[in-house]
């Protein structure tokens, strides 16, 4: 039986074996057919992903100029050291080597390289602005240490460091996911103009397609797909006058404070200074943790841009807004007078006037000129919170000005709701009202708001402040202009005339709080202020515009712990105004001072009154 079976098998085994072979190879062939003919595109794409690496070409960042085409930010050549995490992972000796050359801990190096993970072909920044000796050394030995590469890059350089709070700074791109960077390694705007106009300044990156082998070495630069050229960022032309900014910087010296100057006609910002400041080049190269600690722990808070973020009680500079409210609401007319005995009793408290002896009879002009507190206590009590708030808002207080800078603060103009919240409904008294009416207590404004307010008084319109004049495409010269915008205050001509006259008298008429700063050739209108500071010496304020007719510049100066507006802040503003107007009209300049006969005649009587008063102090 076994033999019979065997005979059958002997006759058929050839067939079975051949069939088995054909089936096995057929399966292989079928699989090959599907891989090579049907799902081939997928594999082809994977092969392409394998071999083609895209390298991002960083565009040149746009430059920044001032109004006289002075370069505020330029690009200086520098070398940056990059590391390729994926390659260094395979060559750990490179880390030890880098640590010795860069004089850093190995762990630091490891952290920097691996900041986006180790399994990436994207380079990570090791050190920007590499010193030349180190660059030369690394260049000679880098063949032995794979995974290091250099890029020639533009470093931001700042010939006018006092513009730092305007320009801001650049820094590394930060992200939680390296893929979101799309291979970009260049610096990016972090604050100021650098971040506001990042889209313009940043330009558009180009792409280079490289063929790499399995070990990541570049074998060839490909023509197909064609490389994309990087488009440089747009240049920015600011309205800032770097010379004036530097002058303001020198005038302030080592004092803490802020100076804002603008063209009241169109909102062009001429000066925007905040002190103390910091060295912008610290952010352009290598920022060590120690430097960063030193900056953020500095008691002067150098990173704070006081011009737009410093909140101060406006003090007496606020009085024009209160008087405007009173005139517009009909509480004050030409006959309105308050007698000042050096203070006012409100309930149990005696609210002092800054002048102990009192001002005597005070009308609207004298109230501004000599800054009589009692006059404004009375106005405040008559007006109430809501009316004062309304006119403050008209002048732009309590609102963002819309300046092209980041992190601007609104300040605080107390409303009924605000006071209710702060002190409890109905718990706040007439005392608070009196304080508000002289710009103390709960009122908080920024120096920029003060400057815009002064400009608004001078022209009758609220301008939107503009740091930037235009953006220019460096390739084809295309210009993108930032247009001036303004809003009419809708105040009566009479009201504006009274306030302007009051401010003119502050500087130009005997008895004015800044009379000692009168100029023979320029008629300046101003207002002094002292802002009570519970933490120390009072802050000194001065707002001014000039010339009175056809004003060209409006200035606000705030000096922290400067005590008297007239003695410390006002000289700065006056010198700045003089410098600007002299520069504006070089050669034989017009005299910006009309003859006395041209003074406003309608309110002649009250004016005469005012002129008779001689003060011994200033506020």
């Amino acid at each position: 039986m076994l033999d019979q079976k065997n005979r059958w098998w002997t006759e058929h085994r050839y067939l079975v074996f051949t069939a088995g072979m054909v089936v096995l190879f057929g399966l292989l062939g079928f699989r090959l057919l599907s891989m090579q003919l049907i799902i081939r595109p997928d594999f082809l794409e994977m092969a392409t992903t394998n071999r083609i690496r895209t390298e991002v070409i960083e565009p040149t960042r746009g430059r920044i100029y001032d109004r006289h085409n002075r370069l505020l930010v330029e690009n200086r050549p520098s070398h940056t050291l990059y590391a390729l995490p994926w390659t260094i992972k395979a060559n750990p000796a490179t880390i030890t080597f880098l640590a010795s050359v860069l004089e850093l801990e190995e762990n630091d190096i490891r952290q920097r390289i691996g900041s986006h993970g180790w399994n990436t072909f994207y380079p990570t920044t090791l050190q920007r602005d590499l010193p030349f000796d180190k660059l030369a050394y690394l260049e000679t030995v880098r063949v032995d240490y794979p995974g290091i590469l250099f890029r020639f890059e533009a470093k931001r350089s700042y010939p006018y460091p006092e513009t730092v709070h305007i320009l801001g700074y650049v820094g590394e791109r930060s992200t939680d996911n390296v893929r979101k960077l799309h291979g970009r390694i260049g610096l990016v705007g972090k604050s100021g103009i650098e971040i506001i106009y990042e889209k313009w300044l940043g330009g558009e990156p180009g792409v280079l397609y490289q063929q790499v082998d399995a070990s990541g070495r570049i074998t060839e630069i490909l023509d197909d797909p064609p490389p994309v050229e990087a488009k440089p960022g747009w240049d920015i032309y600011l309205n800032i006058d770097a010379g004036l900014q530097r002058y303001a910087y020198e005038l302030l010296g080592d004092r803490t404070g802020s100076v804002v100057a603008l063209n009241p006609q169109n909102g062009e910002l001429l000066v925007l200074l905040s002190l103390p400041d910091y060295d912008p080049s610290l952010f352009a190269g290598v920022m060590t943790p120690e430097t960063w600690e030193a900056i953020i722990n500095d008691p002067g808070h150098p990173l704070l841009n006081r011009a737009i973020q410093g909140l101060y009680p406006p003090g007496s500079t606020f009085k024009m807004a209160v008087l405007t409210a009173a005139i517009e609401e009909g509480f004050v007319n030409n006959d309105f007078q308050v007698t000042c005995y050096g203070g006012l009793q409100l309930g149990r408290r005696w609210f002092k006037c800054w002048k102990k002896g009192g001002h005597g009879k005070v009308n609207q002009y004298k109230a501004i000129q000599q800054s009589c507190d009692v006059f404004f206590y009375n106005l405040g009590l008559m007006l109430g919170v809501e009316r004062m708030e309304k006119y403050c808002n008209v002048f732009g207080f309590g609102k963002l000005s819309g300046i092209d800078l980041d992190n601007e603060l609104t300040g605080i103009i107390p409303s009924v709701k605000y006071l209710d919240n702060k002190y409890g409904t109905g718990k706040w008294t007439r005392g608070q009202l009196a304080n508000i009416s002289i710009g103390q207590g709960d009122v908080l404004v920024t120096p920029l708001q003060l400057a815009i307010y002064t400009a608004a008084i001078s022209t009758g319109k609220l301008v939107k402040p503009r740091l930037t004049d235009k953006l220019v495409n460096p390739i084809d010269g295309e210009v993108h202009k930032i247009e001036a915008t303004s809003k009419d205050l809708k105040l009566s001509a009479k009201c504006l005339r009274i306030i302007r006259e009051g401010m003119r008298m502050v500087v130009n008429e005997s008895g004015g709080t800044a009379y000692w700063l009168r100029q023979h050739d320029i008629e300046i209108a101003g207002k002094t202020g002292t802002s009570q500071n519970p933490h120390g010496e009072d802050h000194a304020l001065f707002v001014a515009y000039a010339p009175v007719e056809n004003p060209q510049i409006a200035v606000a100066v705030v000096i922290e712990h400067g005590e008297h507006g007239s003695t410390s802040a006002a000289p700065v503003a006056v010198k700045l105004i003089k410098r600007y107007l002299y520069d504006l009209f070089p050669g034989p300049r017009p005299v910006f001072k009309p003859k006395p006969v041209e003074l406003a005649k309608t309110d002649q009587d009250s004016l005469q009154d005012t002129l008779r008063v001689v003060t011994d102090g200033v506020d």
Partner: protein
Amino acid sequence: MALTNPRVTKSRLAYLDYKLLITVLGLTIIGLLLIYSADHSQNIKSHFTKQIYFSFIGITALITASIIPPRIYNATAYAAYGIGILSLLFVIIAGIIGLGAKRWLIIGGVNVQPSEPVKLAYILVLSVVLSRRRSTVSIVKLLRTIALLGVPPTLLVLMQPDLGTATIFPVITAVMLAWFGLPLKVFALFLLPCISLFLTVYPWFISPLLAFGFVVIYRSGIKWLGITAIAVVCAVATFTAPLAWNQLEEYQQKRLTSFLNPAADPLGSGYQIIQSKVAIGSGGFSGQGFLKGTQTQLRFLPEQHTDFIFALAGEEFGFLGTSIIIILFLLFGWSGYTLATHSKNQFMSFVAIGITSMILYHAVVNIGMVIGILPVTGLPLPFLSYGGSFLLTCFTGTGILISVGLYRRER
């Protein structure tokens, strides 16, 4: 005697299998082209030149082996087998360590891999045993003899460790026993414990197979005692499988499993398979062109001159190239099986079936690995992969096949 008769000599040459020769030469030339391409990616020529030397030595070996009459192989099979086992022992004692294993011996300054010729020696000795079988000898005794011969080389190669090569001995044994005509129930006896090795891994797939196997055994008349014994063996296999798995080196475990899901570790154990599949798939119908495959020339494809040479063929010569290689192997198999069928002598028939199946097994396992349907076992592709020991073994094996062809009319 035969050589003195010119008529007989002439008729013998008439039986020369040209088909086999052309197939082997075709595969070798394709292999040389591919190795040239692999060398080109590294800007060297050393593998290509060496393989040309090996090919000439191989052809010499082929001619020599084809001149020797089969009876000499029959007479020297045991001696060859003995030398082979000794050399494997020697590898364990004094082999060179490379790629995490001891596989090579240095003989006269040349690295030799003894496990390759041992495959041939084993086929020869198995053919002797199977062809000498008398009907009076029981199957049990026969299997005992085969086990005694088969276990030592398998274990010695496993100890190197070289899992891929070690699988050859049981597979060749099974194929030759099938040609011999071993009853199905005896096959089932061996297969059941083998299947139960995987019971813990794929319980729902293996248990019905096992049940079916036991039914076959029962129907074939084996008593309950026998069935119980087999069941015990199966149970032992089931529980020792995980233990044996843990005995494997981690790289072996990864190689064996990563083909199932290479994307799980694309930069590690799955890298080779992914790159190999990408190379083959991107070749398309007619290939990227000679020396133009990006996977090959940029060296994304690993081991491109040895184990993964088929992927290189797939990338640069496309489906046309891979088809030609597969057709050549089919032709080789067809010739070998025809020889085995037409041999009057039982020994020659077994030799032919053994050598042909050994070559085909290498090809199927290698191509299956390269296209990602079989685990990475490291078996080279006959006649194409770079490597002297294996190429010489393949040529010698083909020489023996030709010898079988020349003498197939003789008893």
